[in-house]
């Protein structure tokens, strides 16, 4: 088990925020919900990396009986992913200077 401190890029953070909000989502659903902040060509690479880090988990959707081809994949945040997002949000909130009153 790696002892390195978990890191979170801005895209990973956005994905985790969306997954925490909606529980389970497809890759393209994440792109649509992100208001163009996530791109179709990179979202699956980011999701793959987040799976390696243990931030998200995925399962193949049960295909409808008449459908052929590859099953779609649904992603959800893991408890580690939720904890990292929480810690990151906490850290950002504490490090961001307060606006002058």
């Amino acid at each position, binding site marked *: 088990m790696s002892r390195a401190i978990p890191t979170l890029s801005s895209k990973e953070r956005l994905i985790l925020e969306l997954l925490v909000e909606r529980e389970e989502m497809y890759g393209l659903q994440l792109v649509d919900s992100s208001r163009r902040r996530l791109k*179709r*060509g990179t979202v*699956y690479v980011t999701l*793959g990396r987040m799976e390696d880090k243990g931030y998200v988990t995925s399962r193949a959707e049960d295909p409808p009986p008449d459908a052929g*081809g*590859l099953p779609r*994949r649904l992603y959800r945040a893991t408890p580690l992913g939720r904890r990292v997002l929480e810690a990151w949000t906490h850290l950002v909130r504490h490090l961001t200077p307060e606006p002058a009153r």
Partner: protein
Amino acid sequence: MDRVVDPLIADLRFEYNESQRAGRPWQARRRLAAGYLAFWRTIGFCTARAALGSTLRRANAEGHVMGRTLGYAAGIIAALVFCLALLPFYAVTSANRVAPHELGKLFLYVVPQAIPLAIAFGLPLGILVGLRGRSTDGRIRWSVVAVCIVSTLVAFGICGWVLPETNQAFRETVAGRGRPLARGANELTFPELNAQLEALQRVGRTDAARHLVYSYHARLAASAAPLVWGLFALVLASVTRRTLLSAVVFVLSGITYIACATFVIDGNGADSLAGLPLAYVIWLPNVCFALMTIALRVGASKSA
């Protein structure tokens, strides 16, 4: 890669089928085009990531030998470029009156002259230092050979096209007449030299073509020097594995090479080695060192 690409294809197919089912063929086509773009971007990212990962893993396994070799070579080449450019720059600016605001420009014009020579000597020295005390496997050896080939191509481009232009710009700046000077042999690119050589040989003026032949082959031989010297250093490093000994042999060889080249440059060589065409005489130092490299390699494999 399947883990990344399969969900993308499944989602894109679903999106396309949805548009078709809803009776929106244009939306389906647009989504198909966007899907192809997304697919190839994803493939590109995955390939780049895999290549980077395997390169880093390989570099770790090899103890960063290639990185070290390239680093040393780049450092030595940079230092040599500076020194080799400074000498002619200083000589010319102290002998001619040059406006102070043109000094920086003049120095830049001299730099391409220094680069081929700096690569020819800096790259092999970098190889010797980078590979010191290391047993090199086939992959490292082929990587070094690839670096030598790339360096030779860079030197070829500089000698053939960049150097003539900067030489001419340097001459015109020093002359300071504000009008273009006639180009000499060293101020002609390879295609221009070729064209002039052919024209002179067509009318049978081979004596007049002599200085052109000299410039053409001397620049070609200088371009080939990084490959010849790089391979020499690679074989030397694998034969001795003792940096000091390798460095001494290399420096002595370098002195011999420069002496040979000077012999040719003075023109004495071409006259002394009567019977040999001028082009052959110019290539002689490179050929000698290539033969020495082969002899060292054969000797090393026999003793192994």
